[in-house]
């Protein structure tokens, strides 16, 4: 879980690769480094901490070819020695790597026997020492011969002293090529490159590329060359900037009405192709990790409500190792980045088990789109904040659309009900906007609750997953121990933990579980816990039971998770602000999890 960048052109590389790598900080930021091919030498600089630390004590290195890396430690601690790039014993090559080599121990032993001196504890360093020993007429053939011997996942970029070429390759870790004018790029993610070019070539597994300032040569790991057209990406760099907002997370929360609108565009008339949903399957399994898993949990209720197809949701890394059962469900894989290692592996496993797979992802051309049989894109635009917000909302939208389609195919919703649902979905951007308009009230509430050590989030039915997601948001950005719980389960344990110092956030949608929720709120207040109840407009009872109340606009209960989670995202954000937390870069976690 790291980010890599490479540049070769006719201008100074240093500023450009630093600028690009900064945009990959979301992939990890515990150490970073650059290597620049300078006149007569190969210059390496590394440091621990965010990229701004590296930048602040970097001297000027002249050279028009360079690579950079931002690291999130997997093998070896975050130290300067373990930071990339690595170089061989003679200082001939420099290499950056994202991924995990599974057979590096054996390789390292052999290399050490041959007398190679290792400077780090990482798996990645073996590659560059192997390169030193590799034979071949040029860098390309040497890299290919090295990659034949390694097992595991990698996206690498290599430079050589005195050369203006970069060789990059991928297997199970993301890599894109950016095509510019008299300059070319490689990077883990296209957002790193958008400032410089929007002509992007997506690389697939076991493919490699050789770039020079004027050429892009694509080949597979067997050395056979091939052609692929660059795609023009419509995301602009502006999309990836904070534009006036103090944090990406807040910017992205406020972009949700637009993201919902975009995700619905042209999809409500029922004219899209749905033939793939007419295949034979009698059940659905949704898999995902983290926030995507929570979207999947909501998806279970949506799909069962609209189509009556039995649906289960499972965490990707658990599905993968679960026993093969008789049924062959449609497997819906949810991953924002499309590169989540656990979900990719689970999708492969599902295919192996003979299931059809449907991916829900935000990134065009990402790895999951090549693994899955069918794809529904969420149209959230790039999300930089580590805490997922607009991508979660658009995943829900994709699941509502899926439920609606399945309901149509299974004939479980009448045309009138369908009309009402479509009209309700159209009102969602507006409803979310209304919640955002009340952000100041949530800021005030957050200030009141900021000193909590631990906090419970309870909900029922569709809003049980909402409570899990709200707890996750709170955990990851405000570092308060948040615990999501089905409200009915409180009395089976967690009540023991409640006291006047453990606030409880109760999600009280006006649906068939409302009365029960009120009962739970009473249960909690009886233990002296302060209660913040999130209800819907027109609810006049809630304030009798809860200490604090925040009301969201009224929607059909089916859609209640949408306004509820937006309110709770804001609550978590303002909690983190009140506690002075580094919101866009929480400790120990990264945006895209490309390790298992």
């Amino acid at each position, binding site marked *: 879980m790291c980010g890599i960048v490479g540049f070769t052109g006719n201008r100074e590389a240093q500023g450009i690769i630093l600028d690009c790598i900064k945009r990959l900080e979301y992939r990890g930021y515990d150490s970073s480094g650059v290597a620049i091919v300078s006149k007569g030498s190969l210059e390496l600089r590394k440091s621990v901490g965010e990229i701004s630390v590296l930048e602040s004590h970097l001297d000027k290195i002249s050279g028009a070819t360079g690579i950079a890396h931002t690291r999130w430690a997997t093998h070896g601690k975050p130290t300067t020695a373990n930071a990339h790039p690595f170089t061989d014993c003679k200082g001939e090559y420099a290499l950056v790597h994202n991924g995990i080599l599974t057979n590096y121990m054996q390789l390292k032993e052999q290399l050490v026997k041959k007398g190679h001196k290792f400077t780090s504890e990482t798996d990645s360093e073996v590659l560059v020492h192997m390169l030193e020993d590799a034979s071949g007429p040029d860098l390309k053939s040497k890299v290919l011969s090295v990659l034949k011997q390694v097992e595991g996942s990698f996206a690498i970029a290599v430079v050589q002293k005195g050369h203006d070429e970069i060789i990059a390759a991928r297997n199970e870790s993301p890599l894109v090529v950016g095509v510019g004018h008299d300059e070319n790029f490689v990077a883990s993610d296209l957002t790193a490159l958008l400032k410089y070019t929007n002509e992007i070539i997506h690389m697939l597994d076991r493919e490699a590329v050789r770039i020079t300032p004027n050429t892009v040569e694509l080949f597979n790991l067997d050395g056979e060359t091939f052609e692929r057209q660059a795609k023009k990406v419509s995301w602009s760099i*502006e999309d990836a900037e904070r534009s006036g907002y103090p944090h990406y997370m807040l910017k992205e929360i406020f972009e949700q009405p*637009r993201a919902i609108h975009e995700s619905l565009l042209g999809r409500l008339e029922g004219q899209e192709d749905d033939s793939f949903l007419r295949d034979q399957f009698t059940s659905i399994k949704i898999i995902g990790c983290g926030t995507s898993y929570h979207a999947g949990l909501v998806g279970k209720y949506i799909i069962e409500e609209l189509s009556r197809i039995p649906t289960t949701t499972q965490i990707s890394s658990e599905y993968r190792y679960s026993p093969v059962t008789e049924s062959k469900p449609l497997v819906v894989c949810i991953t924002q980045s499309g590169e989540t290692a656990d979900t990719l592996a689970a999708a492969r496993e599902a295919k192996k088990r003979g299931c059809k797979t449907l991916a829900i992802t935000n990134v065009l051309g990402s790895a999951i789109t090549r693994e899955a049989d069918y794809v529904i894109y969420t149209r959230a635009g790039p999300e930089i904040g580590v805490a997922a917000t607009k991508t979660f909302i658009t995943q829900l939208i994709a699941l509502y659309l899926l439920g609606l389609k399945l309901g149509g195919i299974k004939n479980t919703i009448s045309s009138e009900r369908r009309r009402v649902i479509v009209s309700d979905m159209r009102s969602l951007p507006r409803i979310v*906007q209304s919640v955002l308009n009340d952000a100041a009230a949530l800021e005030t509430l957050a200030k009141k609750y900021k000193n909590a050590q631990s906090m419970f989030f309870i909900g029922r039915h569709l809003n049980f997953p909402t409570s899990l997601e709200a707890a996750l948001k709170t955990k990851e950005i405000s570092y308060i121990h948040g615990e999501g719980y089905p409200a009915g389960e409180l009395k089976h344990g967690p009540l023991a933990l409640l006291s006047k110092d453990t606030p409880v956030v109760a999600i009280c949608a006006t649906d068939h579980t409302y009365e029960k929720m009120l009962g739970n709120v009473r249960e909690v207040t009886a233990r002296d816990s302060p209660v913040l109840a999130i209800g819907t407009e027109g609810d006049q009872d809630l304030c009798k039971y809860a200490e604090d109340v925040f009301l969201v606009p009224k929607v059909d209960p089916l859609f209640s998770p949408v306004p509820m989670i937006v309110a709770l995202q804001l609550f978590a954000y303002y909690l983190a602000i009140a506690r002075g937390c580094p919101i866009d870069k929480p400790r120990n976690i990264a945006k895209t999890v490309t390790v298992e």
Partner: protein
Amino acid sequence: MKAVILAAGEGKRLRPFTYSEPKVMIPVANRSIMDYVVRSLVLNHITDITIVVGYRKERIMSYFGDGASFGAEITYVNQDKQLGNGHALLAAREHLDEDFIALPGDSLIDGRSVSDLLSIGAGYGALVVESDMPAKYGVALLERNRMSDIVEKRGEGASNIVLTGAYKLPTSFFDVLERCVEGGDYNLSHALKLYIQEVKLEPIFCQGLWIDAVYPWDLIEVNHAALANAPIQTAGTIEAGVLIHGKVSVGKGTTIRAGTTLYGPISIGSGCDIGPNVSIFSSTSIGDNVTIDPFTVIRNSVIMSDCGIGSHSMLSQSVLGYGVKVRSHLMASSADAFVNLEEEFYRVPNIGTLVGEDCAMGSGVSIEPGTIIGPKSRIMSGGRVTRNVPTGAIHS
């Protein structure tokens, strides 16, 4: 040359349309008013733009981003308390280290207006227009090609030369402005009044477009002017049997169904579902994600995003804010009327109804011309509205 746009105020006189966003963000021809201001600057190669934001600033920041999609580099400066436009301009001081242009974000202008202001060359000046209603604005007194005095709003008969609020100024103006603000006077024209004693400020007569929406019903005219210059986009699905006359723009993902007639200029946003058999006449703007059901007639109106209008409705010379939902058979026709705005009555020719955001109406509602309906209000089925409805009220 740098520019600063003042966009921090709410624009209270435009209520109910400033309930959740500032006046500068009100859409005409499907772009916010300030969108035209930013584009006019970029047309004149002024790309370093500072926007002073305050009231509901997120709406502005989410819309303009960092300016890249407008070809500009936008910096935001926050004015925490909206004390006055002089105070707002002072907030941008550190970003303005050379001669600059200051513009209000809430007047519709075009590229010509900005180039008029630039035509002064090395000197400094204020963009002015002759107006037959000077009482609504601050006016300038002229003395041989320079401004000798500035008189505040409602100065009777003093001059018909109106200040547009657009200026070209040197940084030395900030010293005067700072003194005023520190003395508790936050009004920009008061500081200018002092400043013209020291430095020559030329009046520059605006040849380009300049329209300011002072009252909410002015939006209909501003929208008309904006539509005249709006670019045309043709996307979406237009079914067979749709009749289109004149300039009609349709956004992506929009469906226009059979039997619908569109007489331009009309601008329709993205993701709308219109028809079948709807008639829309000039000059009408319809935002994003709007549904209009069969047999509805709309003329010369502004329908903002996320509205839904049921079948058999009639809407003329009207403005619907965001997310207004109407069941069916709405009668909102237009006539000359007296409009009650904050307990003052204005005689407005040919006006329909002005509806604030998220208002919900049942079926068969009929609304008297010149009525203002507050945001988040509810009008029950069969309701007959003859008087203004306050925010959040239920009218049965």
